[in-house]
């Protein structure tokens, strides 16, 4: 079983966001970066599937700057066999990112190509599906349950008020959601081993794309709230306010 995982380096989700000097991106000073949380589900799925198959290879691919090597090493420490850094600047256009990833993955002989359902920085929710379309592979997106057996892949995706059951033949693209598994933590042994695992660096350049970021701003501060009162007697006041002032009930 040969499996690829696309992994993005993103700001830790607890990071306070400060708009950078250009006014179009964040100020990265002092920001802690982590592997995209949804991609960790994909990494875990790849390692577990290879363990189950008893043979094969797992590869992690990341597009980003040199610092993404650290993110790749985290995946290697979890148990991925080797890494590829596509060294270049990202793009605000998910299709340009997808094109570069697809070019690297094309012809690689992968049975499965895994993604997170979305990156928690740009929130596109798109790149994995786009790679599948570019490569002409079946795509099972946002799966919270995954089963691979006998050349087929099955998954479940949460939809509004229900769960869709998905099925396709391998090779396929899968994007992972919470619930699919619990990612392992890198062991000390894994961290040591990761240092010696192969990590290839390939320079790439992206097209201009069709999405131009013209600005980044902080959301309007919510007006500091009003404490209506204390204890159960405040409930009547609140209900009135919701009706006459906020007009929501």
């Amino acid at each position, binding site marked *: 079983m040969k499996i690829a995982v696309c992994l993005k380096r993103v700001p830790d989700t607890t990071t306070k966001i400060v708009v950078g000097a250009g006014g179009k991106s964040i100020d990265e000073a002092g920001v802690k970066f982590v592997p995209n949380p949804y991609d960790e589900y994909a990494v875990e799925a790849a390692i577990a599937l290879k363990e189950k198959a008893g043979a094969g290879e797992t590869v992690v691919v990341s597009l980003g700057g040199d610092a993404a090597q650290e993110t790749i090493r985290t995946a290697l420490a979890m148990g991925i066999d080797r890494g590829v850094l596509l060294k270049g600047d990202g793009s605000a256009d998910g299709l340009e990112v997808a094109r570069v990833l697809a070019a690297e993955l094309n012809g690689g002989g992968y049975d499965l190509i895994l993604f997170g359902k979305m990156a928690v920085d740009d*929130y596109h929710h798109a790149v994995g599906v786009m790679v599948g379309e*570019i490569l002409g592979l079946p795509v099972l*997106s946002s799966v919270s349950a995954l089963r691979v057996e006998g050349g087929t892949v099955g998954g479940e995706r949460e939809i509004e008020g229900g769960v869709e059951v998905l099925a396709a033949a391998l090779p396929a693209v899968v994007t992972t959601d919470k619930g699919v598994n619990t990612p392992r933590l890198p062991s000390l042994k894994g961290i040591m081993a990761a240092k010696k695992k192969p990590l290839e660096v390939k320079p790439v350049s992206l097209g201009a794309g069709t*999405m131009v970021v013209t600005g980044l701003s902080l959301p309007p501060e919510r007006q500091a709230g009003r404490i209506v009162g204390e204890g159960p007697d405040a409930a009547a006041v609140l209900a009135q*306010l919701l009706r006459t002032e906020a007009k*929501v009930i």
Partner: protein
Amino acid sequence: MAAILAVTEQRGGSLRKVSLEVVAAARQLADAMGATVDAVVCSSGPVEGVAALGNAGADQVRHASHETFTLYNPDGFAATIASVGGGYAAIVFAATAMGRDLAPRVAAKLGVGCATDVTGLGTEGGAVVVTRPVYAGKAIQQVRLTGATAVLSIRPNTFATGSAAKAGTLQPLAVPAFTARVTVTAVKAPAQASLDVTEAPIVVSGGRGLREPANFKLLEDLAAALGNAAVGASRAVVDAGWREHGAQVGQTGKTVAPSLYVAVGISGAIQHLAGMRTSKVIVAINKDKDAPIFKVADYGIVGDLFEVVPRLTAEVTKLRAE
């Protein structure tokens, strides 16, 4: 004349409410550009509610009918929409489970980017411009879409549905040949059919303050009194197995933007706020006056939820009966 395509959704032969929001957003864009709006619906038979699309602002409804379109057919829907999509100035989807899967497929087929989860839109010098939350809603990105066709998805509960006096004529749309690479073999309904938190106009969420799963009955009663309300949860209680995964609001759960969000016994951790901070009105009920949730709440009650919530339910019931 330029035209905009609004991609609607149906389930079980009934149009989904979010479809009207998609048409309303498309109408808003069309009015800014002097364009017309076509709505498209994919199904295997007649769809109840398509007449309402005209009133929501569609000039024409294109119906793509195929025997495999009973459930969502990712490759079939994408092929159909892409077959005509290049002729439109913009294609508007909803950022729902279906839209999140379908919009990037269509965008990739047309060779353009895809702006997802859009909360504001307009035009600037002829180009479509959108705003969309990024970094878990901690920042808002402004984006200009420069492709021949702008592909975007709107966040549910964000665009108000209007009523235009349009007729919305129904036209068949041919389904091209396609290969169904992935199939939806079934849809499992949850144990009790309930309103999804992402779509409900009112969400009442509970956290660890509820102490045990059975106490969520208090919130279900409040939701029933409010009407058209869904019950959500913090991650703490979902991880504890008190509520379904699908009810989790927050950064690793759902993003909701209802007109009213009531947080009960929820502290207001940053990851929870990520999922609900764009709600129009936020109410917090918490016994700790320093709980961070009060910093984002429009209205707060400091008190024991076990006393406050039943009273609130009673007051709401009384008011709504008037």
